[in-house]
């Protein structure tokens, strides 16, 4: 077991302090990781509130859904009911503790706020979609009651627990365990479980259904994209500082982890699509998840495992900018936080 030198309260001149070195760095100037700070500022521009999402129209849609689609929606919201809370917990219990950079922690604080907004959004969603109190309680305890969701939750808890006992990342093994946790939450949980869930939402939207859910999801999705990007920034940073942490063994661990995540999500899909949904077959869903997993590997510089293509044209639509109509949906694109002062000779 290689041992990393003892942590110091102030970095010694002999060795550059590194991101995962234990401690509580409080120094913002000079800033060591300005790109983390940029992420923080960008995130603030994306501020949205739950009150802006109008779920009113969804109620009529819910009545129109076929039993198979209703089953899909009820499973989906049950997953959403606890998904973001799990992510928030890992953030507080693990990430915040070990990312030793005040600007990085600024971003994580912001992310925590966003997770809280997401939790509030899904709370509001369930309260609206599930008027029956008993059913609602059941939805919130999906982690215990619904096997396909329980399996995903177990996967998450396993990875939260994997480093939960670590107070400081002293050894190479500690740091690799931490990286696997970061990669798990970015690539598997936010990057695969949530991307899987978003696919169902966007499938419904492409059919003109549940626009309220879709517009809220749009904002959630936008936030999650940022979370993932930040997490991969952290991974990149650590890779730059400590390249020897990354080796073939770690690559294999990441691949195994993603393969397990894909299996978790496929068994969830089998449950969700159990009754047959026209336009979304289980085979296509599996292919989509494999495609997403390959993309996550690509970002980490690892060869793809599946070589699957995206079968869902409606997901390609998510990559194209929208032009929606305010009668039908709220604007999700305006910036908050415009700067400058009145002037009459600026170029425009």
């Amino acid at each position, binding site marked *: 077991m290689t041992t990393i030198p003892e942590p110091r309260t102030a970095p010694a001149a002999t060795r550059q302090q590194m991101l995962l070195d234990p401690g509580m760095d409080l120094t913002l100037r000079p800033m060591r990781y300005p790109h983390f700070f940029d992420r923080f500022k960008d995130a603030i521009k994306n501020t949205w509130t739950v009150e802006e999402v109008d779920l009113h129209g969804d109620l009529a849609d819910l009545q129109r859904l076929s039993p198979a689609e209703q089953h899909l929606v009820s499973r989906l919201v049950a997953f959403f009911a606890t998904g973001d809370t799990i992510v928030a917990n890992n953030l507080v219990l693990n990430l915040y503790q070990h990312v030793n950079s005040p600007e990085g922690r600024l971003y994580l604080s912001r992310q925590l706020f966003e997770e809280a907004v997401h939790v509030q959004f899904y709370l509001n969603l369930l309260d609206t979609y599930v008027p029956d109190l008993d059913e609602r309680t059941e939805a919130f305890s999906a982690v215990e009651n619904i096997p396909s969701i329980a399996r995903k939750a177990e996967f998450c808890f396993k990875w939260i627990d994997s480093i939960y006992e670590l107070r400081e990342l002293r050894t190479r093994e500690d740091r690799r365990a931490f990286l696997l946790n970061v990669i798990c939450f970015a690539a598997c949980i936010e990057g695969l479980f949530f*991307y899987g869930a978003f696919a169902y939402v966007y499938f419904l939207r492409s059919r003109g259904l549940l626009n309220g859910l879709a517009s809220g999801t749009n904002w959630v999705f936008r936030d999650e994209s940022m979370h993932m990007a930040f997490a991969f920034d952290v991974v990149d940073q650590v890779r730059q500082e400590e390249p020897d942490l990354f080796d073939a063994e770690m690559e294999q661990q990441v691949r195994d982890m993603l393969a397990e995540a894909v299996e978790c999500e496929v068994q969830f899909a089998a449950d969700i699509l159990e009754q047959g949904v026209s336009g979304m077959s289980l085979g296509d869903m599996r292919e989509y998840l494999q495609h997403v997993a390959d993309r996550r590997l690509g970002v980490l510089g690892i060869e793809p495992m599946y070589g699957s293509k995206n079968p869902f044209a409606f997901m390609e639509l998510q990559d*194209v900018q929208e032009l929606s109509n305010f009668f039908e949906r709220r604007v*999700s694109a305006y910036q908050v936080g*415009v*700067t400058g002062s009145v002037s009459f000779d600026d170029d425009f």
Partner: protein
Amino acid sequence: MTVTQDKTSVPDQRRHGMQVRKRNGDLETVDVNKIVKAVERWVADLDEVDPLRVATKTISGLYDGATTAELDKLSIQTAAELIGEEPQYSRLAARLLAAYVDKEVRLQGVASFSQSIRYAYQQGLISDATAEFVARNARKLDDAVDEDQNLRFEYFGLRTVADRYLLRHPQERTVLETPQYWLLRVACGLSETPTEAIGFYRLMSSLAYLPSSPTLFNSGTSHTQMSSCFLVDSPKDELDSIYERYHQVAKLSKFSGGIGISWSRVRGRGALIRGTNGRSNGIVPFLKTLDAGVAAVNQGGRRKGAACVYLEPWHPDIEEFLELRDNTGEDSRRTHNLNLANWIPDEFMRRVEADGDWSLIDPSEVPELPDLFGDAFDQAYRAAEKKAVKTVKARDLYGRMMRTLAQTGNGWMTFKDQSNKLSNQTGEPGNTIHLSNLCTEILEVNSDDETAVCNLGSINLGAHLADGGVDWEKLRTTVRTAVVFLDRVIDINFYPSEQAAASNPRWRPVGLGLMGLQDAFFVLGLPFDSDQAKELSTRVQEEIFLTALEASAALAEQFGPHPAYAETRAAKGDLHHELWGATPSQTGRWSALKERVAATGLRNSLLIAIAPTATIASIAGCYECIEPQVSNLFKRETMSGEFLQINTYLVRELKARGLWTAAIREQIKRAEGSVQGIAELPADVREVFRTAWELPQKALIELAAARAPYIDQSQSLNLFMSAPTIGKVSSMYLYAWKAGLKTSYYLRSRPATRIQQATVAVTSTARTPVVTAPVVVAPVAAISDEEALACSLENPESCEACQ
């Protein structure tokens, strides 16, 4: 990337044993060939469509035991999903949808247009008059139906028609009319003879002209509310009047009208209430109530109502007003459903420019300000300043307006003096325009007991081109027909409030608009900001205005001038373009027209307004009104779902150069619909295919100002800025005011960051979702501002009523 599965072959478990349930309940094995045949029927003129691909992809999304109706729907969806690769799939999807709708109509035993009307009449959906008209002329009308006109539709347009415009059975919700029956029904609702009806039907089914949505929804039906816009004067400064306005707004909303309402007469926060010796809470709590009221009233069961509140900037509550749309702060002081507009006197802009003070004045102290404009306003305002509630720096207030615009897109800048001085309706003192409408293209006088009304329609310029230019004769013919039928609406219309019924017959205003200007520029190869484009747009507008006035003069010769004609500026010999001091090109026709007007007057006080046309432009398959394209590739989100829209002119250009490849497509997608980075495209082509974000906004303002003399109401002019700053926005709107624009509409901006693209290949940059200023490889020389290159697309929220 390796492909483990051959996508062109259907996986085993799907090929064998997959069954569908037919309408009679029988199970049937899914047969690829059958689907291929159904597709092949429609592809005679679509050489790029691959029927087998549609069929196999359809089956891959199917589940065992699906119904044949699900199969049909899925094949439409599947075709639509291929539009991004090949735009011809849009036509295919539209045709499959038309066939689906046709089947639904026929299944109810409807075999002809007249049967469709009879059936709908039995369900209580059609007016007595239209039912009788159709019964009387059944054979002629049935023979006029031309189902081949369906071939003109793009998918998004026809989907919109099918989901929202076609009459449905009140209980079963099945469609009772085909798209062609629908247009003929609209024509019959406004016609006196079958010949007239057939002529109007042919014009609409050629998609060269479409009336606005309320007419398309309601003509011929049992509730003929066909007007788009209602302009309600501010309630008086008293409780009864305020609550009367809520009631009126509710009634107008119920029948699909878009509402503009002023609130400038109501006292501000802290003003004394003599009756109770208390202090007023100001206008915000009342607007909150209006907000809830508007949301509660469902427009004809279709969607929530919508309204825009206008306030003059001297009102004491102006600062709180500007915060009504913020997404932070106390929710009891936020109105999420109301749009906001500033109704700005020139005096304010002058003080902004001179960096002067600005006085906020309570209307309970000085009630006459809303009724004054020009010198009279300036004098009254200056005299009232000694009673000011508060004094602010004009620039500070202007800066807040700009901030609201940049952050919310809302808080539109509309100019009171220009709107009034250059209006045909303000020829007599006492007639004042107090506000514009929900889309800022309508400017009409109103008062406490007269609510201004306007019905609209738009010409598709793209359908009036021939031989490398405009087909002027065709354009004139279209204008003449359009004016007759817009005028006809005034008499047949149902008015939801007595104030509206009091105004419209007196003034008889109509709003003839334009759409597809960008299509014309693409076809003719003109950059949007070129001198030729400006010249063409101005000449087109002059031709439309001149011909519309001639048509209105002809109507006046037949039926007499509109009752309030004597109060107009035209009656005094001044036509709108003369008020501007513009020099028209067709001097002979103009002087002949003036003689006719002098002799017999005009049937309509106002004729031209450029509405946003979001919905009808979709139906016609053209670009919206006078707008530049927002992107070469974007999607629309509506109640019907999501729809990919690709610039077919660009695709044609790329195909001609052998550049329509998967790699280029991905490049365009990654650049969010911009082609400025495609080095293989020559600079002049890239210049033509710039997006609204890549054009200098000055050019948009100048084009609008150049055509403005020939628009006697106004135009819904959106401005685009991907990364607005207060400095840029304030410069831009000062320029717009100085250019003489009467009104402006949304300020479009784009998100700070966006969702990670899920389907473009992973590259070192693709994983960064921050795209406020994407790297553009080879910008065309004309653009200096790097941020303006960042292509994106916002939601042109628009008034359905005006569309």
